[in-house]
């Protein structure tokens, strides 16, 4: 089985689906001949041509707005927003239009659009190349939000996203775009949306993470193991709808939960997870559910290493929940 990084896995998924379904088009800024700023669409222009690998003018509201119109008419567009930080000009098109067409038309119109965008810090990108905006979109009825952490999941989830009929925001962890490598089949496969993965089994505490924070949680779990603590790591993979059953099952087993995310803490997705877990598993909890997150500041440039959750901070939270 070949080894791929996340970029290669994404490209493989796009290529497979574009070969399988002539309705699939990709569009975005410099995604054609240039292959995209991270090269995710590299080679697609040569294989599929300018009509299906569409270089757009620089305007995110136009990229998403035209993708909506394409989908209404019958195409299956996969727009790329160059950085998650640039998605806000398209916010209205995503939350008020893309996510609402099915509902507001009484099911007459559907928008099968998959928006791909890289998110997260750790690349010395400063405020405008590092944000994790997932909570804004998880709060949007009608949208699905997917956030893989590794190449295998990225390919299987992207193929699944392109083969269902609801709009999806597909968040890719840019810090580990190339650093995360693993065995990925050349052939097609899908992973069901809405299902978490237990990436490490444990008994004393549950670590919940997604996207770029899964590797941090795994690193913390190894630190915990050295300290004689058995930590389970859940990669949520899909954030909306999220896998409540996996969270409750693990909570019932460990009784302790630490949630790790890069985005700011207040109203971050961790808050929703805590609420949902305690509503259903209060009797199993041995300690308050803790969060290790980015801070409630704009994303910093020089001090990003202080801002981003790391294994030591997660380890401190693990100890805190065990000693409570």
């Amino acid at each position, binding site marked *: 089985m070949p080894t791929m990084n996340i970029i290669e896995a994404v490209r493989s998924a796009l290529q497979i689906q574009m070969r399988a379904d002539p309705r699939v088009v990709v569009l975005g800024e410099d995604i054609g001949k240039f292959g995209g700023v991270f090269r995710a669409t590299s080679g697609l222009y040569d294989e599929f041509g300018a009509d299906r690998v569409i270089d757009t003018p620089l*305007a995110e509201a136009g990229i998403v707005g*035209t993708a909506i119109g394409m989908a*209404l008419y019958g*195409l299956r567009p996969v727009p790329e927003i160059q950085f998650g930080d640039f998605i806000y000009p398209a916010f209205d*098109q995503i939350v008020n239009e893309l996510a609402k067409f099915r509902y507001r*038309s009484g099911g*007459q119109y559907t928008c099968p659009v998959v928006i791909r965008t890289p998110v997260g810090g750790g690349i010395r990108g400063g405020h405008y190349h590092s944000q994790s905006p997932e909570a804004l979109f998880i709060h949007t009825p009608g949208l699905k939000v997917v956030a893989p952490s590794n190449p295998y999941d990225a390919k299987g989830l992207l193929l699944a996203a392109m083969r269902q*009929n609801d709009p999806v925001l597909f968040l890719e962890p840019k810090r580990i775009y190339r650093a995360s490598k693993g065995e990925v089949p050349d052939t097609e496969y899908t992973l069901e949306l809405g299902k978490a993965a237990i990436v490490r089994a444990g008994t004393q505490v549950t670590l919940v993470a997604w996207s770029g924070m899964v590797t941090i949680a795994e690193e913390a779990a190894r630190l915990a193991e050295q300290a004689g603590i058995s930590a389970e790591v859940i990669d949520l993979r899909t954030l909306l709808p999220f896998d409540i059953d996996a969270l409750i099952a693990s909570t019932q087993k460990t009784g302790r939960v630490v949630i790790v995310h890069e985005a700011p803490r207040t109203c971050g997705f961790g808050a929703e997870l805590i609420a949902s877990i305690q509503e259903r598993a209060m009797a199993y909890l041995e300690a308050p559910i803790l969060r290790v997150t980015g801070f409630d500041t704009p994303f910093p440039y020089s001090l990003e290493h202080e801002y981003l959750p790391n294994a030591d901070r997660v380890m401190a939270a693990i100890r805190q929940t065990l000693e409570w």
Partner: protein
Amino acid sequence: MVAVPANEKDDLRRVLDENGAPLPGARIPSISDATLSRMFEVMLLTRIIDDRMSRLARDGGAAFYRKSIGEAASHFAAAPLRDSDWVFPSYREHGVWLWRGYSLQQYVDQLLGNAGDPSKGRQTPTHHAARWLNLVSISSPVGTQIPQATGAAYAARAQGKDDVVMTFFGEAATSTGEFHVGMNFAAVWKAPCVFVCRSNGWTGARRGAGRTFAYKALGYGMPGVRVDGNDALAVWQVASEAIDRARGGGGPTRIEALTYRIQGHTSSGDPALYRKEDPPENEPESPAAWQRRDPLRRLRGYLQHRALWSTAWEAEIAERCAQQVSDALAAAEDKPAPAVETLFDDVYEQLPWHLREQRAELLALPRTSPRPSSSIDPSTAPVSADPGEPR
């Protein structure tokens, strides 16, 4: 307000004079007698609906209503389209819906948000959707449909079809980012799209500082044409040319239909709060002058000119339309609100766990209010900073 400075009027396309007689030397579009008669009937029906529904809204029978009185000829830009062509409307092209075959009953059911609404009571009045007519679901934020129309036009061509996409918007939309984005993408892609701006004279300060909206099209390398938006024949003619051009691979066109809405934005609110003082009666842009250019009156005049009109014929249509409206309202009275279970349908293709859970939670509660949707009255809602009322 003055919609267009007098010195820019020369390029305005017109076919009919104020009484509906062909202007000397004007090219008359070739429209069959049957089509002309139907145009008149739809225009008359639109006016009757506008009148009846705004009265219904004032009496509390509907939440509110958005009138189009005075602008009805501009809707006929959609008339030369084929059935397979698509339209992305704003919320004020009522004639487009009726022209394409949306039934009066569906129209009324949507206004009332009852179980007969094709959109299942999901949106406020005049936000229709009709997939079977290629009429796209309407949104309230102004201008959002413009890049969407461009995308649909791109998709039509990419799929090897020769469908054309038309989108409508008011002149206020030309100040939005999405107007420029949609126009620019369409021009770059040479998308088979026709952009129809209804300049109805109501934008005031929301308008830009530029001269006319058709000029904005020039900036994108797109032909822009200005037409007398109260002249149904001229509207038909410029739309036909733009549609043919788009279908033939010539790219998008921008049409500015100069018209005048005779009444305010919705059935609630006071237009005097945001509309400049009207010019005196003898001025060309006064309400009285626009009343003289009333699109229905002019089309009637043209039908008379073609010997297609009689008092009895119009009276028969008016009576029939009024009766249809009454029948539709009576039928709507018997229709319940959408079933409570449907609240959770169509958020996604399938119901995810959290919506299943919330649905069960709601269904377990005792039902108290049978028709909450018709009790919303924007006139009693808190006043926003913008007196332009709910969009």
